[in-house]
């Protein structure tokens, strides 16, 4: 139903979000073209900070690490999540219990996830760390970059695979039984059932799962901050971590603002691509 008066109902949201998003964003753009010493002492420098940031090897490194991390996270969590969702019984008393257990990691505050893994993976006091050390592997996530990465990936898989699994389970549960019966009559094997019956019907829900996981992994801050603090060295410093160090740690307003704008543009592009494909896929959605 077409009704432009509906704008009145949306207005409170627009005002609140404009205050918390647009005003800060405009400020960031203002900062990004100036060299700021304090409010009264500032010099207009044009787009120099952008040029500098785009050629800053530490920015490029953080970006590449971020891309690698997000790529690995998606590559592990999406197939694993689908596989778990297929293993959960479709009905019966066990279903609810499995779903609740799967949901548990999603309900834990992110810094506590970091804390949990900190005390779980430390070689001296952690169950995992001690177990790995006991079988003779040298493992220390605060000392070795590779170990830090493995621990971070394990933590993220532990934390977020359930989200993909729950979304995929919801998608699987909505597939009519008749589709399976038809496939059975055709003599389809398990792989063919998955490939031709399940996967096409999971498309919409998987797009959303990939979008949520990609966006959330791109803004990851809290868990690595607690677990590794971005180290050893800079080996687990991702975009948010680097930006926060610049903005709050060193108070480099101009470069940090340029960084923020670039970061936001990247998110905006990805978000738009996904939003377009979700909306195209599910016209019923809106």
């Amino acid at each position: 139903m077409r009704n432009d008066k509906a704008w009145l109902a949306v207005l409170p949201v627009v005002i609140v979000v404009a205050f918390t998003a647009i005003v800060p964003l405009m400020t960031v753009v203002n900062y990004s073209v100036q060299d700021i010493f304090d409010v009264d002492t500032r010099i207009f420098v044009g787009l120099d900070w952008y040029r500098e940031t785009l050629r800053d090897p530490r920015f490029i490194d953080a970006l590449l690490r971020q891309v690698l991390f997000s790529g690995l996270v998606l590559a592990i969590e999406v197939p694993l999540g689908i596989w778990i969702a297929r293993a959960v019984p479709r009905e019966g008393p066990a279903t609810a219990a499995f779903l609740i257990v799967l949901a548990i990691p999603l309900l834990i505050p992110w810094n506590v996830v970091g804390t949990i893994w900190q005390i779980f993976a430390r070689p001296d006091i952690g169950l995992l760390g001690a177990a790995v050390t006991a079988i003779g592997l040298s493992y220390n996530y605060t000392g070795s970059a590779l170990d830090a990465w493995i621990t971070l990936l394990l933590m993220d898989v532990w934390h977020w695979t359930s989200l993909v699994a729950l979304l995929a389970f919801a998608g699987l549960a909505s597939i009519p039984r008749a589709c399976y019966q038809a496939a059975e009559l055709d003599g389809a094997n398990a792989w063919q059932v998955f490939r031709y019956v399940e996967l096409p019907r999971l498309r919409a829900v998987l797009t959303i799962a990939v979008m949520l996981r990609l966006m959330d992994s791109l803004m990851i801050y809290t868990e690595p901050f607690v677990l590794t603090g971005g180290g050893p060295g800079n080996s687990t410093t991702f975009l948010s971590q680097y930006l926060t160090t610049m903005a709050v740690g060193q108070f480099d307003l101009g470069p940090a603002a340029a960084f923020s704008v670039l970061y936001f543009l990247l998110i905006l592009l990805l978000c738009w691509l996904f939003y377009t494909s979700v909306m195209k896929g599910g016209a019923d959605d809106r």
Partner: protein
Amino acid sequence: MAWMAWTWPTAAFFASIVLALTAMTLAEMRWPTAERQGWLPLSTTRGDRFFISLLGSAFIHVLWLAATDLPVAGAGLLSLGYAAVVMTRG
């Protein structure tokens, strides 16, 4: 407002975006658009094409700044051309 550290160029930038949005809104009320399919691989309304123009222009500037030390006006011209193509043919 002092903490927002306004400058004339950024003020002009935001003013032009607000003006453009207002113009788009008025145009939409006067001549509502229909979705259409151009060379872009999806059907778009006028508002969509406007957004694609802005976002694309932003990335043209980013790539320009990353790649060359030539004046930014070049990226500006390129963006104008791109925006014109998207708005009319997209």
